[in-house]
């Protein structure tokens, strides 16, 4: 296989990680929303934790995006 072709394939494969991070983020926001609907009074107090979980999970997706960008442009 040509090295250039392998680079593009690798960039595409690296993007799978972004999809899985998307699943994780969906879980976080979905569960937050479910909890917030059951107990709206407690929802605002947990916003910081929501964002913390979002940031930590999103970082993993961003790492794979970074790999893809390095393969494409690096």
């Amino acid at each position: 296989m040509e090295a250039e072709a392998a680079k593009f394939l690798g960039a595409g494969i690296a993007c799978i990680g972004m999809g899985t991070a998307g699943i994780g983020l969906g879980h976080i926001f979905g569960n937050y929303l479910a909890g917030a609907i059951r107990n709206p009074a407690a929802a605002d107090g947990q916003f910081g934790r929501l964002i913390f979980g979002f940031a930590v999970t999103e970082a993993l997706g961003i790492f794979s995006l970074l790999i893809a960008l390095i393969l494409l442009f690096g």
Partner: protein
Amino acid sequence: MAYDPIHQFHIEKLIPIEIGGVDLSFTNSSLFMALTVAGASAFLLLATRNRRLIPSRGQSAAELTYQFVENTLKDSAGSAGMKFFPFVFTLFMFILVANLWGMFPYFFTVTSHIIVTAALSLTVIIVVLFYGFWKNGLGFLKLFVPSGVPKVLLPFITLIEVLSFISRPISLSIRLFANMLAGHITLKVFAGFVVALGSAGFLGILGAILPLIATVALTALEFLVAALQAYVFAILTCLYLNDAIHPGH
């Protein structure tokens, strides 16, 4: 060249300066960092110039940002963390204003360069390490040894905790940098679709409406991301400072 989505991140020397073989040129990155500091200072100084008990609109905006960061810091690090308020507020305002400056077309985004975000996140981690060891002495190392863990698992847990601490500056800097980089590349790519389709005749112009709508929507999303990433950076700084103030929790 016109469709190259990476070109917007190119650093150009505006005033070349070289002292003793070290390149200290005033670049477009330096210009926008100066603009960021000027923008944030001007906003806060002008908004609080005529302080009144019943605040004007500008004063309310400045007070809102102040209280927002104050609540974030108090919620995550307790009132003992308030001595770090100037540090966290400066970081928050710098990142927020830098991200918002970057949203103007043809403007340079300071935070889309990893060297800038790495310097910011290393500052945070160095402050956490110094303050943690200064305040708690070797007790700071309790951070890596959680209580109530079975003896057999303890070496592994400690290893994982150390690794997670080491990855903090990496993830803190890469999150901000990659978010801004990816967002601006996406905007540019969709804008490129509009140009490419628009030059392909009447049907192309009809087709170009879709990516144009996408560009408008993405611009709105990027404003959200710009504010959210500044908040995320601030809240993670607060949580890491909390580790330094109260280790072993």
